[in-house]
């Protein structure tokens, strides 16, 4: 079961718009690959895999929403942004989407560009910008970190859902006329609820990791450089 907005299936958005977003996603992912390579060290490589696996797993957990017809799932953009940074984070979400579309048929292959733009690019970018901003404003306490992760999750999910509305407005295969405003409203409402659920899970996960292994949290690296964080030998990630 899947959500309408998040994994766009073949035929919902017309060809030219899908192709344009495909090109956009390809260009952005190329940049992420280029920048991500510099980030990916022996500490981040397993973390990136685990974040991707975690997102893959939680995307299987769906929130049934009232009617039962529409269900939504977690996106994981904020979690990826906090733990592995914007570049590798976007790649993690993109990998999840590519694998899902190739083998589960979850989201059409031809619509991959649209799905990657919404969830991997928009979702992660919004989350990371918010995290970078909030971590500087809010007090550096556990509560501050939890609030940061929560707010970033909620807003990144909302923005990603509105990405679909924008794409539908640009190239929806069926003109729903004035219902587009309704579509935007429904999407926002549903995803506010999803965002709250996602925010709780993200905050809980990030806080636990930050307490025990702060060296693993990418977003905290530049703020609180731990003396041991970068001096360990290559294979010394084990503790």
């Amino acid at each position: 079961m899947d959500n309408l907005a998040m994994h766009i299936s073949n035929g919902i958005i017309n060809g030219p718009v899908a192709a344009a977003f495909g090109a956009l996603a390809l260009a952005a992912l190329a940049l992420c690959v280029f920048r991500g390579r510099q980030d990916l060290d022996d500490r981040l490589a397993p973390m990136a895999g685990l974040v991707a696996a975690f997102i893959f797993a939680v995307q299987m957990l769906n929130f049934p929403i009232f009617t039962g017809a529409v269900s939504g799932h977690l996106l994981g953009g904020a979690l990826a942004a906090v733990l592995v940074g914007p570049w590798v984070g976007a790649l993690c979400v993109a990998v999840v989407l590519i694998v899902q579309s190739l083998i589960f048929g979850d989201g059409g292959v031809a619509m991959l560009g649209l799905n990657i733009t919404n969830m991997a690019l928009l979702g992660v970018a919004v989350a990371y910008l918010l995290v970078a901003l909030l971590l500087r404003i809010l007090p550096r306490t556990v509560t501050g970190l939890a609030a940061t992760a929560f707010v970033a999750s909620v807003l990144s999910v909302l923005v990603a859902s509105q990405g679909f509305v924008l794409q539908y407005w640009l190239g929806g295969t069926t003109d729903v006329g004035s219902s587009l405003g309704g579509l935007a409203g429904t999407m926002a409402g549903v995803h506010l609820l999803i965002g709250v659920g996602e925010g709780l899970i993200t905050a809980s996960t990030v806080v636990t990791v930050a307490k025990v292994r702060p060296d693993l949290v990418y977003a905290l690296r530049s703020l609180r450089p731990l003396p041991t964080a970068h001096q360990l030998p290559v294979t010394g990630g084990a503790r």
Partner: protein
Amino acid sequence: MGAGHAHVLYRDRTSAVHRLPPEVKIAAMVVFTLAVVATPRDAFWAFGGYLLLVLLVAAVSRVGLAWLASRSLIELPFVVFAFALPFLGTGERVSWLGLELSVDGLYGGWNILAKGTLGVLASLLLAGTTTMRDLILGLDRLHCPQILTQIATFMLRYLDVLVGEARRMRVARISRGDDPRFLWQLRGFAAGVGALFLRAYERGERVYLAMVSRGYQGRMPGAWLATGAATTRHWLVAATVPLAATGIAAAAVVLG
């Protein structure tokens, strides 16, 4: 989170489709889907042709029609959206059984239903005949950036770690007097999700270090990459289905 999503879709059979190298299957599936999506929605006969192609491949690969049908239920929510469109759509209306339906909406609903279903069926055929390991190998041979295949490899490896760790934690909770029922077990899960993540990471880190100490440098073992790569014959065999689909799509565009 059932056990082993990583293998749940693979159908262990021997067939010509199973034996094809993964890279040609991925390419064929992508080209087929693009041809389907490019087809004008009022060329109804074309979609019949595509379905015939899918059924043909399904028969050759022996994955079983019942399996294909039950697995394609993943697109159910989209079907609901497709059935809503005739009511939401604007413009000219027809009445059918006393309902006022939008013509544009009817076409739109059909469009989503047909293209979505064919896309799901095509990817199920790929998943049913290709293991996850081969899938990543195929992406690597198609020159997918190494960082992406690396993340994908770890994702699949760690899915099992995560599921195993979640199961151990659940057993631990139950043995300490927790009584998980339906929705209430979500609370225990939510409270432990951070711990689950951390435990899975530390286990996963050991897996990673074990791989590094055995010579892992970010790519699949050379022996895997070297053997079983696609030959020209493989490409020609696998090209038949997407070529037929492209032919149908071209005919539909020209005639439509």
